[in-house]
């Protein structure tokens, strides 16, 4: 048992806006109190108390992440930690090793973490790494946007049987991979690239099943709804990173309007085109559309200046990035499912493109009115490492600080962005929403992201400073499941978190022809495909519906 006293509590779900409140913890949960007098007390005087952070989109575990580590040993040269009696060693400042990933997130006050893109065939790998990512509860999204079984089911002419088959495939994929959500990455576009064809638009038929990106996205959105998944489709749309892609993103939003959808790293999809064909911010138009569609959520994908690494299932995007930049390029095509690529990158303030990207991400977060629908992310490590969150929080909360950075950007950035005109500053309450309460709600996690009775006792306590970067750079305390993991800014205990999965309303079963198809063309036997329960030793299944 534990009582946190004297802290200023920010618990937006329960409408507590910075009031001094006691938080009572019994076993793994938050309780009403009172607790017996001998209960251990944490005095949070001068501190801010929030629910543990919830990371909705990050690349931390699995094949492409490890590919990234393997690709750049140089990122470890000045970034390493020795082991202690409690902690494992680790290294790499861009794509930290698994243990270090858990420790660093914990120090930032996070307690729940989702790996954003897992190809089904490599799901065991992701779970193996998540098992070695301590402290946080973790889950992963299953990549489906170029999956043959999905596309074959969508190719079914009869509407009813199409819906049934698709539902069977999606449930089967989620079950087989122990995934939490349906991830779509460049739907149809990755498969098209494997045929050495060009970029796809909403209505481009994609071989070998002649289904279109529109059919894939709307079909999966509907299936996610029918399966009552706690999180809707998690969508990385086509045309990532192209100037002018804003128009395409708006078209995609129109195609999906009316159904729930999460648009991930929206910054990368919101570019207007300058007269010369270069990058300009499309934040105003995107935010305007988005503000009027309460069925959508998004995460920002904010840029952090410095070296980092792009990694995505969007293999064609990585290939064109490599063609543009030269240098290292890793690629992995995955049979019948997807591709993936890894390319190191460095974002620079004096590059006009990077400067526009930097402004655009912040503009989105400032122009989207409802903090419950836009979340803090760097699409770690694509737009920057997650360890930069404290800096980004300060940029959101402090306009003077933001403008001091703005002054250092490429001088022409003003012509292509509107950041200069935005005066909004995030409040602590809004920060609590975009880093924990909002993502928890979007993910359908009812016992996380708030501090009401019955919630998991996942609590972050930050020392109050006017300098918000300093304030959020290291939690004074982190309580996970009622255990004090971080004390005085140092990790005192480490253990395995839970593996978040789904309790689906139907059994995942492949229709006969799809199963036959799988058996004929996969190199893994049907019976060896499904991830066994050994890979999630501490499961927590969230009920759909």
């Amino acid at each position, binding site marked *: 048992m534990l009582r946190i006293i004297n802290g200023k509590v920010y618990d937006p779900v329960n409408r507590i806006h910075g009031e001094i409140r006691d938080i009572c913890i019994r076993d793994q949960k938050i309780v009403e109190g009172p607790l017996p007098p001998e209960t251990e007390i944490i005095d949070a005087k001068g501190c801010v108390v929030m629910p543990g952070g919830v990371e909705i989109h990050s690349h931390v*575990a699995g*094949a492409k*992440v*490890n590919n990234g*580590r*393997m*690709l*750049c*040993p140089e990122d*470890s040269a000045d970034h*390493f*930690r*020795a*082991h202690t009696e409690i902690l*494992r*060693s*680790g*290294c*790499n400042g861009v794509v930290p*090793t*698994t*243990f270090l990933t858990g420790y660093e997130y914990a120090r930032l006050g996070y307690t729940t973490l989702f790996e954003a893109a897992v190809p089904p*065939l*490599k799901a*065991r*790998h992701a779970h*193996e*790494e998540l098992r*070695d990512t301590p402290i946080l509860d973790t889950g992963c999204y299953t990549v489906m946007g170029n999956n043959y079984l999905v596309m074959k089911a969508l190719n079914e002419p009869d509407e009813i049987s199409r819906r049934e088959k698709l539902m069977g495939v999606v449930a089967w994929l989620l079950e087989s991979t122990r995934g939490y959500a349906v991830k779509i990455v460049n739907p149809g576009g990755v498969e098209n*690239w*494997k*045929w*050495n064809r060009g970029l796809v638009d909403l209505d481009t038929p994609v071989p*070998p099943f002649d289904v279109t990106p529109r059919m894939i996205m709307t079909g999966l959105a509907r299936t996610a709804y029918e399966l009552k998944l706690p999180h809707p489709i998690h969508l990385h749309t086509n045309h990532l990173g192209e100037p002018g892609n804003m128009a395409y993103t708006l078209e995609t939003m129109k195609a999906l309007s009316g159904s729930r959808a999460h648009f991930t790293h929206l910054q990368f999809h919101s570019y207007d085109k300058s007269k010369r064909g270069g990058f300009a911010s499309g934040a105003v138009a995107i935010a305007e559309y988005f503000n009027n569609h309460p069925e959508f959520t998004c995460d920002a994908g904010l840029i952090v200046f410095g070296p980092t690494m792009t990694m995505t299932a969007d293999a064609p995007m990585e*290939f064109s990035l*490599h*063609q543009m930049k030269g240098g*290292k*390029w*890793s*690629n*992995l*095509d*995955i*049979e*019948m499912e997807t591709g993936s690529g*890894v*390319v190191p990158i460095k974002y620079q303030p004096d590059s006009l493109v990077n400067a526009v990207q930097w402004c655009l991400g912040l503009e989105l977060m400032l122009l989207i009115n409802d903090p419950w629908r836009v979340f803090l992310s760097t699409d770690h490590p694509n737009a920057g490492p997650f360890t930069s969150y404290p800096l980004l929080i300060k940029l959101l909360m402090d306009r003077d600080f933001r403008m001091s950075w703005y002054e250092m950007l490429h001088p022409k950035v003003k012509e292509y962005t509107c950041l200069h005109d935005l005066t909004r500053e995030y409040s602590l309450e809004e920060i609590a929403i975009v880093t924990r309460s909002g993502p928890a709600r979007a993910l359908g996690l009812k016992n996380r992201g708030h501090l009401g009775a019955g919630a998991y006792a996942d609590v972050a306590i930050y020392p109050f400073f006017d300098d918000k970067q300093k304030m959020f750079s290291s939690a004074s305390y982190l309580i996970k499941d009622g255990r004090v993991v971080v004390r005085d800014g140092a990790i005192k205990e480490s253990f395995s978190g839970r593996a978040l999965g789904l309790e689906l309303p139907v059994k995942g079963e492949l229709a006969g022809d799809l199963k036959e198809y799988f058996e*004929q*063309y*996969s*190199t*893994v*036997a049907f*019976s*060896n495909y499904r991830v*066994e329960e*050994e890979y999630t030793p501490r499961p927590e299944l969230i009920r759909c519906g």
Partner: protein
Amino acid sequence: MDQELKVHSDVICTFCGCLCDDIEVEVVDNRISKVKKACMIGRNKLMHAQSNNPDITIAGKPTSLDAAINEAVNILTNARFPLVYGLSSTTTEAQREMVEIAEILNATIDNPSSYCHGPGLMARQQVGLSSCTLGEVKNRADLVIFWGCNPLESHVRHLTRYSVSAKGMFHPEGRKSRKIVSIDIRPTPTTKSSDWFIQVTPGNTFEIATLLRALVANNPIGKGDDALIAGVAVSKWRELAEMIRGCKYGVIFFGLGVTQCRGRDINVEQLAVLVSEINNHTRFYAMAMRGHGNVAGGNQVMTWQTGFPLAVNFSRGYPRYNPGEFSVIGLLARKEVDAALIVATDPGAHLPADTGDHLKNIPVIYLEPHNNPTTEWATVVIPVAQAGVAASGTYYRMDNVPLRVKKIVDSDHLSDEEVLKRIKERITHAQNY
């Protein structure tokens, strides 16, 4: 007495990097009695998996498991420069324990890839690699090039399951619709079954890859068509370059003939750049012909836990990477290590004799299911339940697809993972008192 027959299907053969997962195994009274579908080597391995187990010994004398583990802990905690080595033929679950033991001991850890496909990993660190899973080869590849490898003898079912005669989605005819090219220094069964065998002079991999880069890009090469590169006329190489540009989905499988010939990592680097540049024209990939069952998994585990796939030293408490300085062969040749924990590899058979000899002069703890050259001289021998036969766990195929190998019979022995956990716990205990 009735004999109990159990038939296990879709069993995964752990012998080579193919990890064929369609094997049928019959077990009668806990003995493997029949193996179907596997290649000769795989079948032999499975049929003999339960025989020829070593005794638990210290200095050749039989002892108890408890005493052997205590002696192991004693040796490791008293060593000044211990080496943890192997990892290639056991589960990732055991490999994870090995990395942790190395870390607790501030030891050095390495795996056999440092003298097999390690140069390929180092090349990837320089330039990356465009690769794919084996199913992509089966379903899509219309051009397959075997370079410095002989899968017909080393990865027997690779050709029928994945790369040559496999009937894929877009190649329903299998062998007929694929072009198979071999590049090697001598004829082998694989080169004989290829459509085109390009016999090259030894040690010229780098030159060949460089020439192909120029030809694929249509760059001038300053040599006539009759000039010889690696003993083969430029006109022939031009033909190959045309074939490469003309294919829809091509794959190079490369073996030790590429990674271990003169130039080593820069060969693979040049090959990787070639493959990368071919993608300006068509889809093209390369894959290392990984040998031992889970050597790929060892690289993965080391990378996610330490940041590096091989040759890692923990003497400062954090992982440092330096192939050469921290590679098994160099460490042994320089006689730097003073104790070794070896799991799931046979240094007595695989390491060059003169380097391996140093191991005979230092205390060695050896976990292994079967008698082999190393069990003859290792200081502490601990027999273990063989992964994929008497123990389950994760293996990574040569294309890094992870599969779960199964336990199909019971063993009197613990698995590598279980023994290593006990060793780890006692080391921690010993260090704290």
